[in-house]
């Protein structure tokens, strides 16, 4: 159980109790709505997890540190940005991996670009976002985050870390 999970569970349970005390009927309605959202979204979510499972098998942290540790120059930046964009990783794995990479001698701006794309650009997010909203806004958000990664690289190059 991560701290995330504990916070969310405590919050949900607390608010559920408050809601129950205030109005039983409304609480029942809320739970029915929760169930409906769950039933509606699962068919969208579950196939994505198969994809995540495959990605995690192909692109392991070990693979990332081998690839990114060796590459530098313009090609290194491209590799970092692309790896970050296709991989799916929890921040609790990603940031330690980032600091490991730097310790192993990978270039800091390359790692910065990798981390930013890793957190906010992704095929998985894209799929979910284009299903719930539409393709155009999904492209927009992912593209903005990708540009964000390039900007972060430039700032790191400019001011140093």
């Amino acid at each position, binding site marked *: *159980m991560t*701290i*995330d*999970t504990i*916070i*969310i569970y405590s*919050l*949900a349970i607390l*608010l*559920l109790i408050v*809601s129950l005390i205030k109005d039983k009927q*409304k609480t029942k309605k*809320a*739970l029915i*709505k*929760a*169930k*409906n*959202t*769950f039933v*509606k979204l699962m068919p969208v*979510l*579950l*196939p*994505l*997890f*198969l*994809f*995540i*499972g*495959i990605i*995690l*098998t192909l692109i392991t942290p070990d693979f990332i540190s081998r690839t990114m540790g060796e590459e530098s120059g313009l090609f290194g930046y491209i590799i970092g940005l692309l790896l970050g964009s296709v991989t799916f990783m929890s*921040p609790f794995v990603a*940031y*330690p991996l*980032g*600091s490991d990479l730097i310790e192993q001698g990978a270039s*800091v701006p390359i790692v910065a670009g990798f*981390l*930013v794309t890793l*957190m*906010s650009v992704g095929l*998985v997010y894209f*799929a*979910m*976002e284009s299903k*719930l*909203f539409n393709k*155009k*806004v999904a492209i*927009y*958000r992912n593209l*903005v*985050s990708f540009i964000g990664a390039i*900007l*972060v690289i430039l*700032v*790191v190059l400019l001011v140093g*870390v």
Partner: protein
Amino acid sequence: MKRMIKKQKFLMISIIMLIVMTIIDISMTYRALENTYDQIISMLLIVPPIFILIGLFDVWVPKETIVEHMGENSKTKGMILSFILGAFSAGPTLIAFPIAYMMLRKGAKYSNVLFFLMVWSSLKLPIILFQIAELGFRFAMIIDITLLVLFYISASIIHLFVSKTEIESFVLKAQEL
């Protein structure tokens, strides 16, 4: 059948990848399925409270409140509120999408919802603390401040790229849920 393939593009791609993996090395397929299982379990663990919160929000927060604070005329206040909602959150980005969806349904302006999604994906406070511990304060701040400025600007100018009617069409879809 054709429609199903189109609708489940990701599933199809995944299945093709699995078949290729099986031909190359079957142990990879096992690992992929194991990873999928682990991911699904960890998601199922975090999903119930999120959906309960969405349900509670749905019945307790009247539409007018959201329209007033995050709707078409909310301006900077709406952005600040979106930032707070995104920053004081916890959980993977995938979970943010159903929440964003509900905000839209309740009448929040799309640029606010977009800003919320962006902040959630990269600037969640619990993650920032962890990020500072791992990468150091200066490095973390370079990343976070650059992103914050970019996210704010890009959410504010979304109307230049996506038309009102396009946004209205998926807001309508959200209302059906």
